[in-house]
């Protein structure tokens, strides 16, 4: 499996919809600036949770594409 496949592989299954709904809920009622701050904190938290620099590099590359 290539890095690209690994970063894009679905791991949430039907919980993906649940997560997306939670994410939108978290942003509800926030100004754009507040939302951006929420995203920044979230990225930092999730990066720590991933805890693997190679995976984070791959995610950064996929996101920047």
């Amino acid at each position, binding site marked *: 499996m290539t890095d*690209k496949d690994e*970063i*894009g*592989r*679905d*791991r*949430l*299954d039907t919980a*993906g*919809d649940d997560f*997306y*709904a939670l*994410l*939108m809920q978290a*942003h*509800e009622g*926030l100004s*754009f600036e507040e*939302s*951006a701050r929420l*995203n920044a904190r979230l990225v930092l938290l999730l990066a720590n949770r991933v805890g693997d620099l190679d995976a984070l590099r791959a995610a950064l590359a*996929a996101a920047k*594409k």
Partner: protein
Amino acid sequence: MPRYAYQPFPYKKPPELDGAVARQYPVAIAGAGPVGLSMAVDLALRGVPSVVLDDNDVVSLGSRAICWSKRTLEIFDRLGIGERMVAKGITWKVGRLFHRDREVWSFDLLPEEGHKMPAFINLQQYYVEQYLVERCADFPDLIDLRWKNRVNGVRSHHTGARLAVEAPGGAYHLDAAWVIACDGARSPMRSFMGLDFEGRVFEERFLIADVEMRADFPSERWFWFEPPFHPGQSALLHKQPDNIYRIDLQLGPDADPDQEKRHENVIPRIEKIIGHGDFELDWVSVYMFQCRRLERFVHGRVVFAGDSAHIVSPFGARGGNGGIQDVDNLGWKLALIVKGEAPESLIETYDEERVRGADENILNSSRSTSFMTPKSKMEKLFRDSVLDLAADHEFARRLVNSGRLSRPCSLEGLSLQTPGAAEGIAPGQAMPDAPVQCEGRPGWLLEYFGGGFALMAVGCAPPPGLPAGLPVIEIWPDENLAGAEARIVLRDAEGLVADRYGAGVICLVRPDQHIAATFVAPHADEIALAYARAMGREH
């Protein structure tokens, strides 16, 4: 192919206006849409007579519901119109999703073989209603269908309800032991009873058009986010029988419905999608979608089913399909209660089980509608990012939400079901179909279920001493292995029954083809207990 020819159904003076002595009917049904009509047929098949009252005298104006799911088709098959629907309808299973000018991904709904009914068909609601009306005519002694009879009020008491009805010949009262309110999304019955309809209204407007044209678009569901022909919005194209195509266009929250409905405004929009002007508009409407439900579906002797009880936005085709599952759930329960074979409290489980179904449908439909109509700049950024990432990444394709299509509701864990002991299928599921043979004739498993309760034994014989009146259907790789108690013996023609249910598993099947309990090598007492529980006789 000519367009659908609306034939008004004849008005007949109701007996109450002809001097007949008033009496109490077992069941009155308010509303003859797909839900009310199905309700009458389901009850008739169980020997329960009903009076159906409808304020109108034609089938649905406009196609409205077009997508009917596999589970709904199985229920309609039990009611006797499933094969006719499939023969007329367009069978489809592939959906394609586009973002701007590229295809993001496609899905195939039912890769699994060995089911009588397809994953989905498209068929205009007016055909479904017509077939149901014709099916009602097969039960002249049991179904009293009254067109142009408007319900104007209801008074409920502890042994029934009295409806105030207005017909062309005058007004009358109709007493019924049970009233089923199937009077649609705007339900006057709900207002008569002062019931709240809680939920969410989406501000967005959608244009829905049926277009008649000769074209060779495949029988697939095509959904676009921000297509070049309709910038910034979403669009849907879906084929129906008779060379009719359903087109949905998102218009934004500020669109003026009266302006948008005008043909001179609709036609250019459609020309842009299909690339030419060689079509005719069959039906146009502008909708704002809502996801709401009653807090309870059972109010004494008045029971709500279909859109009167719950409404959803159409992405996912959960409105009509959900309503037909209400009927499936309510029919046998009401029949047992009316015949005095189950306690009246069984009706509470209709509320419990169908509120679960409605919540599932509301959750999924709300999410799809939200994905299509981002409310803030940040929501829009997330949505667009999902679509961007979807080109390369599987996980993002799975987040793209243009409708999570209607699936059968599982009743697992609710009060009528006995928690599962066996491996294989979980109690609460709707039975999966499979090919079988009976005395050499090929058929389908589901065709043998749906009358009353039944015990299905897969590759095994049930224990002696079963509850009286519980028929046994045994399914074997070879019929000669069957035990003496079996009322029907089926051959597991392709081994799919054993695959889908588990070899050696015994299932208690409800009259709506849901599994109430599963067993491996049970004692007859365990089966009797589960049977009593599934009839609401014990908890």
